[in-house]
């Protein structure tokens, strides 16, 4: 049986190899974290890569597409830009386009957004009494785009069992696998 083979492998490993595998795993996790935090610093956005969750920007973006964001202070918000923003009190980010901006001399800017596929602007989505968005609501501006890749994230969110299964299998594979000829999944 498959599981017995794996268990034999684990028993055959001595302590040092086990520690090595655990450290290896830790290295992978911390490298991923470093890359993510590094991206956050370079782009100036708290979430430099987002997945499109709704169809309000079709036909440009569909559910599951990946967007690369920047939020640098030197790039002012202008109409036509695709902004990812959060409404105060809600945590789901929305990806829409800037329709109108009014910027004062001191740099304070208020703007209105609308989804390409929506018939009306977003004032119905904002908080009660809120007519404009401000810089603080912005997570980032979309600068790059890759289609379809984000479907995995949506699947993992909608079916948590799938997420646990994937994580469990990955962890098992990395910890137990020690042969060097076989293809490496995470490197």
């Amino acid at each position: 049986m498959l599981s017995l083979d794996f268990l034999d492998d684990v028993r055959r490993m001595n302590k040092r190899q086990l520690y090595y595998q655990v450290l290896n795993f830790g290295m992978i996790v911390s490298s991923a974290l470093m890359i993510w935090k590094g991206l956050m610093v370079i782009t100036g956005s708290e979430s430099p890569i987002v997945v499109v969750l709704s169809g309000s920007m079709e036909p440009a973006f569909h559910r599951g597409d990946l967007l690369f964001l920047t939020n640098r202070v030197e790039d002012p918000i202008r109409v036509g830009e695709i902004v990812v923003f959060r409404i105060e009190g809600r945590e789901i980010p929305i990806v829409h386009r800037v329709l109108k901006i009014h910027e004062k001399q001191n740099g304070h800017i208020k703007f209105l957004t609308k989804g390409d596929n929506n018939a009306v602007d977003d004032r119905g989505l904002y908080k009660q009494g809120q007519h404009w968005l401000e810089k603080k609501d912005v997570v980032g501006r979309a600068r790059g785009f890759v289609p379809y890749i984000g479907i995995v994230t949506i699947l993992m969110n909608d079916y948590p069992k799938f997420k646990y299964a994937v994580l469990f299998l990955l962890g098992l594979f990395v910890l137990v696998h020690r042969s060097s000829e076989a293809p490496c999944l995470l490197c």
Partner: protein
Amino acid sequence: MNTVLTRANSLFAFSLSVMAALTFGCFITTAFKERTVPVSIAVSRVMLKNVEDFTGPGDRSDLGIITFDISADLQSIFDWNVKQLFLYLSAEYSTKNNALNQVVLWDKIILRGDNPKLLLKDMKSKYFFFDDGNGLKGNQNNVTLTLSWNVVPNAGILPLVTGAGHVSVPFPDTYKTAKSY
């Protein structure tokens, strides 16, 4: 069991790498292209009203009503990595209240395969041209209309490009109070 799994694994990894390389190729071959073309915009009618901003804020603001013509040939922008163009006509101006205002008056989506030659006449704006305040009255040489577009690729950068050509819209000094327009 072992060979089926390892074969499936290498096949999967290989197809992923090929797709990643293709996607990167799409992106890098079009990342530095010039995406601007000449456009010609003309304004045939301008009217100014002062009403309560019913689209949101509710205070009395200037409302501009513009009828315009646009002509442009966007054929040269479409290449293997352009999925659609999101065109928008925007008015840019400055007022006493705000140093910079930009309002999108009209937009259009042109998908790959649609007719890329624009020849539009007597178009009415799609969105209400409300100012934040009363800054449009008497604004003689400040309001500029430009046509820009957002290039949406199959994969890659999402640039905002402004067409080469703009028109200045002089607004009258008085409000129109007639009942119909």
